């Protein structure tokens, strides 16, 4: 038992190891599994992420151009990040803040909107050309 004595004496007189969290925040590590964000301007609503997600945190509806993300279901496994063909999902190293309720993040892909608009324009152009 007394062999603990030097340790506690050292601790007592050399200060504490505590990081005073709210005041003193350490930056997250590289590649820490913080949380994922969706880049609407890159997403093509292809649905690969939704297919690969093990915990059904993502659902996509290409018709409505709607990607629903349930943050509280996400296990930050990074599968979606790796699976996304257009690099539209990014891993952020900082953790996601706590929540009072269970929100759903709804995403509309701006890229798909653009694509659709341009497709529509093209269609229009073709139809005009037909006319």
């Amino acid at each position, binding site marked *: 038992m007394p062999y603990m004595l030097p340790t506690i004496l050292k601790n007592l007189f050399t200060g*504490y190891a*505590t990081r005073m969290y709210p005041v003193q925040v350490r930056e997250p590590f590289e590649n820490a599994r913080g949380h994922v964000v969706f880049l609407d301007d890159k997403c093509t609503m292809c649905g690969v992420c939704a297919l690969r997600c093990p*915990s059904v945190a993502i659902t996509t509806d290409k018709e409505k151009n709607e990607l629903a993300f349930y943050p509280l*279901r996400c*296990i930050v496994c990074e599968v979606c990040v790796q699976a996304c063909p257009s690099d539209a999902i990014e891993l952020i190293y900082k*953790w996601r803040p706590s929540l009072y*309720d*269970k929100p759903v993040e709804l995403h509309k892909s701006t890229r798909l909107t653009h694509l659709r608009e341009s497709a529509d324009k093209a269609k229009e152009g073709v139809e005009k050309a037909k006319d």
Partner: protein
Amino acid sequence: MGLIQRSRVKSPWILHFDNSSCNGCDIEILACLTPLYDVERFGMVNMGNPKHADILLITGPVNRRTARVLKNLYEQVPDPKVVVSVGTCASTGGVFHNCYNVLGGVDKVIPVDVYVPGCSVRPEAIIDGVVMALQKLAKL
């Protein structure tokens, strides 16, 4: 804010209950007690007993067997009390959501006040979650 309200915020005693977690979040809760994070700075003490607790920290998805235990424990915590579901699994069932014996998140059984997302949660996130819970507790 009265003396008792103020004391409530300053002295949150925790009951940690593990439903059927992979123990990732449990390790992180225990990490909060280590010298590095030392939640005792905020008066947080990890109690082994629901009768002394103010805050329930619940990890892991609820399964058919732990649902009963969770409900029993919740009823034994004297008011005012808040429930923090720690981690994705506790919040919604996470990756276990369609296991044959898993009911889902903690809120299927008892009302949850604060959800802390993450898999597993970081100790800082747990501290944040408890602080949010305390803000709710102060208004009770």
